[in-house]
């Protein structure tokens, strides 16, 4: 059992002016086309990120040198309305293969009309990331922060 208290899930919502099928397709098939490239974990620059379109599929990035780094797995694949994937990136920004340390992301696609879709995202079970020893070590030992901050600084710089 976990000794870490539950962390409230993160939620986000966006409404887009496209049919629900297209919203789902862009989110999944074209994942690599919109995911902000600075948020990646591989040593090499990220070339693209891929979400395999099936239950049990891999979610991973491909580096410009051809290397691959896993991010998680597809738990539920229900086009065009629902998607659940695991996020297994720990506090050291490395893939943690232990399913016990996997946080989950659930995405719902709801048609508001023929050409409008609301996308609701929830990132939950964050305490499982915290249970991972690597995150604890990173925070208490300072090891996790430099890489996190490097990412953060890059993202902030690209903002404006």
């Amino acid at each position, binding site marked *: 059992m976990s000794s870490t208290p539950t962390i409230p899930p993160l939620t986000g919502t966006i409404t887009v002016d496209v049919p629900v099928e297209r919203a789902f397709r862009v989110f999944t098939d074209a994942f690599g*086309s919109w995911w902000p490239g600075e948020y990646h974990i591989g040593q090499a620059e990220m070339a693209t990120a891929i979400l395999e379109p099936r239950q049990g599929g891999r979610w991973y990035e491909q580096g410009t040198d051809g290397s691959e780094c896993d991010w998680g797995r597809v738990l539920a694949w229900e086009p065009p309305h629902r998607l659940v994937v695991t996020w297994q990136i720990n506090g050291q920004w490395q893939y943690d293969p232990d399913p016990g340390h996997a946080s989950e992301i659930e995405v719902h696609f709801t048609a508001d009309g023929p050409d409008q879709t609301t996308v609701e995202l929830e990132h939950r079970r964050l305490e499982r990331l915290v249970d991972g020893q690597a995150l604890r070590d990173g925070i208490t030992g300072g090891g996790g922060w430099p890489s996190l901050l490097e990412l953060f600084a890059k*993202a902030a710089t690209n903002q404006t």
Partner: protein
Amino acid sequence: MNTNGVDGLGLLGDPTRRAIFELLARRPSTVGELAQQLPITRSAVSQHLRVLKDGGLVVSQAQGTRRIYRLNPDGVTALRAYLDRIWEEALTAFGKATQAPDDPEQEDQ
């Protein structure tokens, strides 16, 4: 298109607050030390620090006559805020991508 419809976040959505968060992660600091590194006044720094403290990202401690600010060492809130930031940015980018005239194989007009 409604890319403003992204909910959540807040604490690190402000660029100055992000800069303070980043500086504190490098090194615990006083208000004066932070103000020296940023193009804002000490009182503006203090206001941002209050928001970060209320949000649980930052803690402070008196050291003699100085008050030192640092990231909350439990790390949980900081990680959560950071992931929140990533998702806000990612969803906004996703919203833009749905409007892009791409998908040659899926042209429906």
